[in-house]
């Protein structure tokens, strides 16, 4: 554990100096600030808009940081040849990879705490300026506990994205790795819906059509034989990030169940572990 900790500590020191981190954090703060404006011009509850938008910004910019720093993390070690003096020591390659992963996760955790603090400040400000200031903001207007849970799930989502960045980063160039990881993140946002469409919605529609004698002519039904296995493949290979999307429930209610939170955390940990194991297998075959 000592070696992994040392590598993680070193990665933390290295990544905390990465300018990309600060650029993304700055834009995240700007976006959150903009959420106040969106709140003011929105028709519904402006406080809900600010909360929802802030959490979405945290998720998106957390993933961006994971992609841009994580994708080049391994390559930088190889490119700058700093890896030579590490791998030639009694350090196993999986220890190196895990150390890098945990170090980056620690940096992102810290960055997200910073972004969370900014987001809380904006939400508190929005609550304070809300139409009915007589209602105490710390109790009824904002569910702060659930807000923290939503944040925790975003961190688990980031954990998955970092593991993918490490996986792609250990076998491809930083640019390709960033593209693959970001694509996986985007597809992961909708993979559950795609899966639902081809495993539940289209079959149900076909069943109704059979009963009514209707002939289905839409593209999804026509290409069902091809799209179903494809959607299943995408669903099982790429992460299903809907497990971590609790912000609507947190902001609008009803609040997420304990089972939902636990399943999400378990899925995040399991997926990250699987991606890291694959990364270790591929990294182990690498020649420097």
């Amino acid at each position, binding site marked *: 554990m000592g070696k992994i900790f040392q590598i993680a500590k070193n990665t933390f020191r290295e990544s905390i100096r990465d300018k990309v981190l600060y650029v993304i954090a700055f834009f995240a703060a700007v976006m959150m600030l903009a959420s106040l404006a969106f709140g003011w011009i929105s028709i519904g509850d402006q406080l809900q808009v600010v909360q929802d938008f802030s959490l979405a910004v945290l998720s998106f910019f957390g993933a961006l940081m994971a992609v841009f720093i994580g994708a080049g993390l391994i390559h930088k070690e190889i490119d700058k040849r700093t890896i030579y*003096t590490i791998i*030639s020591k*009694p350090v196993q390659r999986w220890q190196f990879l895990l150390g890098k992963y945990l170090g980056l996760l620690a940096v992102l955790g810290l960055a997200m705490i910073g972004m969370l603090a900014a987001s809380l400040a904006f939400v508190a400000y929005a609550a304070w300026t809300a139409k009915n200031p007589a209602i105490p903001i710390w109790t009824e207007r904002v569910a702060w506990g659930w807000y923290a849970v939503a944040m925790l799930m975003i961190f688990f989502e980031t954990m998955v994205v970092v593991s993918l960045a490490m996986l792609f980063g250990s076998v491809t160039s930083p640019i390709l790795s960033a593209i693959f990881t970001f694509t996986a993140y985007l597809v992961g946002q909708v993979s559950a819906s795609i899966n639902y469409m081809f495993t539940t919605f289209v079959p149900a529609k076909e069943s109704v059509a059979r009963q009514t004698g209707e002939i289905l002519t839409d593209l999804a039904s026509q290409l069902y034989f091809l799209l179903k296995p494809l959607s299943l493949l995408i669903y099982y290979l790429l992460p299903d990030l809907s497990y971590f999307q609790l912000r609507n429930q947190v902001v609008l209610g009803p609040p997420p169940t304990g089972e939902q939170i636990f399943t999400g955390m378990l899925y995040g940990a399991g997926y990250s572990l699987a991606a890291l194991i694959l990364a270790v297998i591929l990294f182990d075959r690498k*020649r420097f």
Partner: protein
Amino acid sequence: MRSEAPAIAIRGLTHSYQRNFWEKRRLALENLDLTVDRGEIYGFLGANGAGKTTTIKILAGLQRQTGGRAEIFGVPVSRPECRRRIGFMPENPYFYEYLTARESLDFYGALCDLPGSERSPRIGELLEFVGLAQAADIRLKEFSKGMRQRLGIAQAIVHRPPLVILDEPMSGLDPIGRRQVRQAILDLHAGGATIFFSSHILSDIEMICHRAALIDRGRLVADGSLAELLDPRELEIEVGGTNLDAGQTAALAATAGRFLRREGELLFSFGDWEAAYRAVDVFRRHGRLTLLRTVKESLEDYFMRSTGKAGDETGARDG
């Protein structure tokens, strides 16, 4: 692990690689056999691209061979415990620039399982050894190449390995830097370590190595002590002097293998003693004799003779 096993034993080591899957495989090493005994300073000699770095990377666990075997003190290099017994310095070592020399050595010490209580005195000792005590708390981005090279040696020996492997340790250094690194190697050897280092700077190998191996295009050309490798016979006899007139100079130059005029001194090289004696006689009678010496084969001559070229590229990826 056998207690009598040599420091390095390489048998039939072969390594091929493919840059792209559509390209033909290239052979970086072919059936290499090499033994480095304990307590030696062993020079690994070859032109750029000959396969030196590939061999060293396999020994350091950075690459895996495609054939043959390599052992360190009787333990196959594929086993991680083998790396506890080696200290490795890559060519032009790179470090985390935001760390200081002290922080850097602390990091490497921890990777070698050195307990925290031992690390601090050991780091002080190492910084003294490589002459970086004054620069211990300076960030590495401000280090010169020579300082990085010396830090490279320090990180390699942080865990007191019995075998130190250095890849081109003198590469790119000025004469002072080279001398410092050479001295560090000699000091390490005096401390009981076996040293294996690659170089294409022949004079360095000639100066400090007990034995050397010559590799060319991934194949071992020769190995042995320098006395065994180099031709003991005189290659040429050099005669030098002054005060000869143009006619006498031209007559001697016609019989000499090489003729050189340097700051008023006339230098002639002869392939046999008979011609050399004639030149000595001419100088004694008509001028002033200033030089008479025999030239034996140097490692550079041997290198040229054995490889038939001067450091061309072989197409292999690593050195």
